[in-house]
């Protein structure tokens, strides 16, 4: 894959990291604005922000960002200062690392690791550490309860997440995300290769499992025990203000963007458009196609978030261990058997 202009290896890496660093807050804002503000509002028969920025309040989240930046960054007196300061950074770093692997075009990916999927899931579980640090350091009982719940929940839902992805890897035969995208583009469903073979058909159970597990990873309703407004007010984020709270906000929606990106790549064929193979076009259309698929998956996730009540702590664990994991294992079994048979 020879890019048109031959520039130094270092500068390419620098450009890519800058682009990724820019995408994440932008992605968080796009996702946050369209779903959290506008879609949720219309689902609740109201309009959402209309005034900021004139047309339909597009400036709302940018304004929030600026507002948070100039707010005073308060540290509770009895808090563990260093850990309190570092915690949000840990959460956001785990999101940045996931983006390194998601491809937006034939060569629009920071580093095309062969073990891409494995790396992405491993890195996404870093957030647990950040959450526990935040909860413990802010010396507040509500934060402590929220953090303990978050720890238990994130660990419990790593497993179903992995099992869901294993099915895809089995079908694609490779763990590198570019490989998975190609497998879906060139694959065919029982001979007919009109739209390639997006794994959502073969792996419908895997897709559902991934969505449910991603919902839990993002601590969104019906799994938002750690940040339960009516009980723990704001869970582990309760003592954070100003710029650090902005980090948490970007972390939350950045991870949502990352997981939606992963789901789109693994199950909906990523940036690939069937039968469009020449790299020039793909590089241009790739990101747009990926964005639409991401918005589609994100719509599903947020739609569930605004409709369902919240599960209780023990029910949440029961759903993970007794319900999701057996289904994940069964899914792998069936995929393996079918793979061997055909």
């Amino acid at each position, binding site marked *: 894959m020879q890019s048109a202009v031959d520039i130094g290896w270092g500068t390419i890496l620098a450009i890519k990291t800058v682009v990724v660093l820019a995408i994440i807050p932008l992605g968080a804002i796009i996702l946050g604005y369209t779903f959290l503000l506008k*879609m949720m*509002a219309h*689902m*609740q028969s*109201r*309009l959402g922000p*209309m005034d900021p920025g004139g047309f339909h309040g597009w400036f709302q989240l940018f304004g929030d960002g600026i507002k948070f930046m100039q707010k005073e960054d308060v540290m509770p007196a009895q808090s563990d200062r260093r850990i309190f300061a570092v915690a949000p950074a840990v959460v956001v770093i785990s999101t940045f690392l996931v983006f390194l692997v998601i491809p937006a075009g034939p060569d629009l990916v920071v580093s095309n690791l062969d073990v891409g999927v494995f790396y992405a899931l491993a890195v996404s579980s870093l957030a647990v550490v950040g959450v526990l640090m935040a909860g413990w350091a802010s010396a507040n009982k509500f934060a402590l309860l929220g953090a303990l719940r978050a720890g238990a929940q994130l660990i419990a839902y790593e497993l179903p997440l992995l099992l869901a992805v294993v099915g895809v890897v089995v079908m694609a035969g490779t763990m590198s995300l570019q490989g998975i995208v190609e497998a879906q583009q060139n694959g065919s469903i029982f001979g007919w290769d009109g739209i390639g073979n997006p794994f959502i058909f073969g792996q419908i159970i895997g897709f559902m499992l991934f969505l449910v597990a991603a919902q839990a990873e993002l601590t969104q309703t019906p799994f938002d025990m750690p940040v339960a407004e009516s009980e723990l007010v704001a869970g582990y984020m309760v003592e954070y203000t100003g710029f650090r709270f902005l980090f948490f906000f970007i972390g939350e929606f950045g991870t949502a963007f990352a997981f939606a990106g992963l789901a789109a790549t693994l199950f909906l064929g990523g940036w690939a458009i069937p039968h469009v193979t020449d790299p020039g076009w793909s590089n241009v259309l790739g990101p747009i196609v990926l964005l639409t698929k991401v918005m589609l998956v994100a719509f599903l996730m947020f739609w569930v978030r605004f*409709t*369902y009540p919240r599960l209780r702590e023990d029910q949440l664990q029961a759903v993970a261990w007794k319900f999701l994991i057996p289904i994940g294992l069964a899914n792998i079994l069936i995929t393996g058997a079918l793979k061997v048979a055909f």
Partner: protein
Amino acid sequence: MPKLPKPKAPGLIGGLGVTFKTMLKGAVTVQYPHEREDPPTRARGVIALKEENCTVCMLCARQCPDWCIYIEGHKEKRPPRREGGRERTVSLLDRFDIDYALCMYCGICVEVCPFDALFWSPEYEYSEANIADLLHDKEKLGEWMETVPEPEPLEVGAESGKK
């Protein structure tokens, strides 16, 4: 009676259907500063004072549960109506303040006033930055008089005996 049991999708899917349908239906928000929803004619927004009717009988100040009406009046001599009759003494208002910071809009003063000097007006946009400005004096209460609507016609079957 409770609706016919139409084929029941499991509750989880039914819930999603409800939110999706509402998303497509229009929103009900009234964007306040640009659009306004006008309150019904009987809404109790602010109390208006018709100064000519007031005879400083202090009934409203006495009956107000919140003690938020402050009245000062004086008496004057007036030429008799018919010549040769006795000189009339008339009470005039010097000060008639209603403190809307204390008022709870119960309407006892409007009702107890024997000379119909106080009226309700559905006006509601008189909030102030400084709470002291909520003490409306005689002129301000007079201004509200224009916003007092005509009493509505009553429902069918109502005996319109009372005022």
